[in-house]
């Protein structure tokens, strides 16, 4: 049953990027900056040893800047912009020898002023990380990038709907609040790993990546090669959650292999994971205006989104965060201003939910503050304003297949909210899918069934199983008769990437096309392709944010030890709208995983920095949720609708968890505005309540 992608994990047959080997390969170790911002003055690699190869600045002088949305990254940094930035690399016969040789590379630095907070980073006089500006890049960008010249803002996303000043003029009640979210680690079990090899001026990389074609395109830019001269072979990942996207360890590795003239492998250690890619810290200010009867009239969102030393997909995250923060509500006047901002922290990128959590946490907490002001139940306030079929969202899109009220009601019912709302909190959310994007797939007849070629990647989310189940239904065979070939840019048809809960939705439809095509090709081979067109105008936020909406809700019931601030989640319930479920077991696991990840984010996950240095770069000091952290009741449901499309659900119930728990505390008069909701913060909220009364 190794084809299912499940049993092979148990038997050990499944090979991950950490298992990849090539004959004659060397092992790499990276030389990383100990400074958050420093110019490399000189590098002396003469002590590395005769059997080692050192890669320094002059070896990469011919390589160009690259980046998935902004071309701001260099293969090796001549100016280190975060602690852990790679300034040199070494290849050696063993990983240990490589590490020791890397430690013998002497680097002299000239330290530069640094900035670690996104709000400070856009104030006048802040040190600039990329003084020569940001340049939009690549087809991965679904929006035009709008840097603010002469500042650390690499992108500004604005949404304007109605006349927000007039809207606040009409408002009878206005609340304004600010909320903070820290950085967090994806912490997949398998770290970043890859092998790079050059043969006949052609580069092949075996790596764990969610984005094989984006990776190929970015490396083609860096190395000045035609994309066809680069081959990316992906395998199953031991978890990713957004961490293994775009170029990470691969560019340095490819340059090192080029110099060594041999294949080179790297496996990052856990501490390196914490300086490779994290989640965007953010500050979000919400202003919300309503009539006395609770009808919303105006909303303003100002978002400072910390993308770290390099933009990566920060512009996209700021955009999605910006419109998701509007929420699934009819609001006649809306203004959103979201900045993706450079700071001297490690780069931040895609993280399950892609920014939606940060702004949903802020916006949905503010809804409960407003509910108290207008003396309505938080459930009723939401009901009165929810988007319904045919309503227009703030982006100008007309909503279809709208299930927000159903999701919200299901969440409320799960905790018996209407009988007694004390100690309980709700959150309802809207988020979108990568748009525009393209997904192609091919089906080929094989002796025992069919082979599907796709660049969709498996990271434990069950992509293979879902395609097998869909394929079996369409082709009239057993799921086990369908082999899903590993993603390989030489043989897999194009796919934008495996992100944003889009694979089952997009690839599923592409597969229907492919099977139709197969039927007209004497059942031998078929090809299918689906495009979703659209995108938002970055200056007005108008256009098509998403061709299908992720809709969900969560409810929480909590108790608090008011002497210590220790919070106990007695019940956590997540609701996702699935349209039609393809793989019931996989869907349930995705929902549980997203809820649990949301719980960690809510209660204790935070990367701590001291002068830009990660202070808890290990899994003892950085806490992840363990079995013992599960709420006493941990439940979820997946809503279907007869005749509906397949909707994505890999992320949906993560973003609502913090606000649901935060609102449950708020129902007890405990107001916490910063994640994680630590015992210490809850105790401070207990004190604040006492002072108020």
């Amino acid at each position, binding site marked *: 049953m190794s084809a299912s992608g499940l049993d092979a994990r148990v038997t050990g047959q499944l090979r991950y990027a950490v298992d990849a080997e090539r004959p004659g390969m060397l092992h790499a170790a990276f030389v990383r900056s100990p400074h958050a911002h420093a110019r490399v003055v000189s590098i002396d690699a003469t002590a590395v040893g005769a059997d080692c190869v050192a890669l320094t600045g002059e070896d990469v002088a011919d390589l160009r800047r690259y980046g998935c949305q902004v071309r701001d990254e260099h293969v090796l940094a001549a100016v280190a912009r975060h602690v852990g930035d790679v300034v040199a690399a070494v290849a050696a016969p063993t990983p240990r020898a490589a590490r020791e040789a890397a430690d013998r590379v002497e680097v002299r630095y000239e330290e530069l002023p640094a900035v670690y907070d996104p709000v400070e980073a856009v104030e006048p006089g802040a040190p600039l990380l990329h003084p020569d500006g940001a340049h939009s890049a690549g087809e991965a960008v679904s929006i035009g990038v709008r840097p603010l010249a002469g500042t650390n803002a690499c992108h500004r996303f604005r949404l304007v709907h109605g006349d927000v000043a007039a809207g606040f003029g009409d408002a009878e009640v206005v609340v304004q609040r600010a909320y903070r979210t820290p950085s967090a680690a994806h912490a997949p079990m398998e770290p970043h790993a890859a092998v790079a090899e050059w043969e006949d001026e052609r580069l092949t990389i075996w790596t764990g990546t969610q984005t094989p074609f984006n990776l190929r395109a970015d490396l083609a830019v860096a190395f000045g090669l035609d994309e066809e001269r680069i081959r990316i072979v992906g395998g199953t990942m031991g978890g990713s959650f957004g961490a293994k996207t775009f170029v990470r360890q691969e560019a340095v590795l490819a340059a090192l292999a080029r110099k060594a003239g041999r294949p080179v492998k790297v496996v990052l250690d856990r501490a390196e994971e914490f300086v490779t890619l994290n989640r965007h810290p953010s500050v979000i200010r919400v202003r919300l205006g309503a009539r006395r009867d609770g009808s919303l009239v105006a909303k303003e969102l100002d978002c400072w989104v910390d993308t770290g030393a390099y933009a990566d997909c920060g512009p996209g995250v700021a955009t999605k965060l910006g419109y998701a923060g509007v929420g699934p509500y009819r609001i006649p006047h809306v203004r959103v201003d979201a900045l993706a901002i450079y700071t001297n922290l490690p780069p931040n990128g895609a993280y399950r939910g892609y920014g939606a959590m940060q702004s949903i946490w802020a916006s949905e907490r503010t809804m409960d503050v407003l509910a108290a002001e207008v003396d309505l139940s938080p459930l009723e306030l939401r009901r009165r304003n929810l988007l319904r079929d045919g309503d227009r969202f703030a982006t100008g899109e007309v909503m279809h297949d709208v299930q927000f009220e159903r999701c919200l009601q299901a969440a409320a019912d799960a905790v018996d909210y209407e009988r007694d709302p004390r100690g309980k909190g709700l959150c309802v959310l809207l988020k979108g899918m990568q748009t525009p994007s393209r997904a192609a797939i091919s089906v080929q007849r094989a002796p025992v069934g069919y082979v599907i070629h796709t660049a969709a990647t498996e990271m434990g989310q069950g992509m293979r199983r879902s395609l097998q189940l869909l394929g079996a239904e369409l082709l009239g065979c057993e799921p086990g008769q369908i082999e899903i070939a590993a993603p390989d840019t030489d043989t897999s048809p194009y796919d934008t990437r495996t992100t944003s809960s889009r694979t089952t939705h997009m690839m599923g439809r592409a597969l229907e096309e492919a099977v139709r095509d197969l039927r007209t090709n004497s059942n031998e081979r078929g090809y299918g392709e689906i495009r979703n067109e659209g995108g938002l105008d970055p200056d007005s936020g108008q256009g098509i944010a998403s061709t299908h909406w992720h809709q969900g809700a969560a409810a929480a019931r909590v108790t608090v030890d008011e002497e210590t601030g220790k919070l106990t989640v007695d019940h956590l319930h997540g609701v996702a709208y699935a349209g039609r479920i393809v793989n019931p077991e996989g869907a349930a696991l995705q929902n549980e995983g997203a809820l649990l990840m949301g719980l960690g984010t809510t209660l204790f996950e935070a990367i701590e920095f001291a002068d830009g240095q990660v202070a808890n770069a290990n899994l003892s000091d950085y*806490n992840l949720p363990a079995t013992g952290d599960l709420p006493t009741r941990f439940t979820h449901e997946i809503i279907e609708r007869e005749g509906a499309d397949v909707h994505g659900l890999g992320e949906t119930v993560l973003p609502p968890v913090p606000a649901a728990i935060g609102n449950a505390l708020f129902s007890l008069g405990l107001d916490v505005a910063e994640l994680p909701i630590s015992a*210490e913060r809850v105790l401070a909220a207990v004190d604040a309540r006492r002072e108020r009364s």
Partner: protein
Amino acid sequence: MSAVQWLEPRSLAEAGEVRAQRGAEATVLAGGSFLGILMNQGFLSPTCLLSLRAVGELRGITVRDGELCLGAMVTHRQVERDETVRRDWPALARAFGIVASPRVRNQATVGGVLADADYASDPPAMLGALGARAVLRGPTGEREVAIDELILGFYQTCIADDELLTEVRVPPAEPGAVYRKFRSRSSEDRPCVAVAAARSGGALRVVVGACAEMPQHYPDICALAAEGPLDGAMAREIARRYAERLQPLTDARGSAGYRRRIVAVEVRRALEELGGVGGETLVRGRQGGTLVRGRRGGTLVRGRRRAGP
């Protein structure tokens, strides 16, 4: 490139000889759950490791003259699950059984956790409250030191370069000793504040762990308990004084100010639990091989639940 030298003596005598010869040059390795983290993170790069895993004499759990004797290489999991420990030193079984996860407890050892002297470990505070002594064996013989003599500061002990910690001796425990672990983050995290409280020979010992460089024990404050019944007022007063005296540290699990407040709460709660022992609600005994213990006003029942006393 130099490989780490690996020394693996097969007996205590041999281990003692190697230790005496190599001294600090050979880093002593017990379960490796702590040393492994330090080595992985590059904080420690020993050139030579002295592993105690093949020394069978260090693996025993025995009772001698009423004292519990735990070999240095006994794992946390063994202490947690041992029938004798669970019956006669239940709070000790609890303190070892609440460390991290079973994966860690199967590896971490009694000797290791004391010799590491990590401020945020669970067992040292409980061992201190129970009046335990560590046995240090050197070329000229053995000496016994109390826990508060053994641990001198952050990762500092009084173990000499030619000595090995071979055993921990725990005096007979009076019923009702308490270990409270307050975690501010995950259930598998180390304590933010740990409180161990026990009575021996009529004297009260309260030891607060995880708040300072070593477990904190204030005999003069504990002596207050001799002046009256251990009731709510006494518990509050002792807790208040502990919180006042202690100089807590700040780490990711809580600020100094927060810890001070938690010490006041958790010491009081520990003493309320301890004070409950001897009262009418105590249920202590064996039932079908399982220890059943109830607490006044609490909900914790270790072992199998049953309908009533």
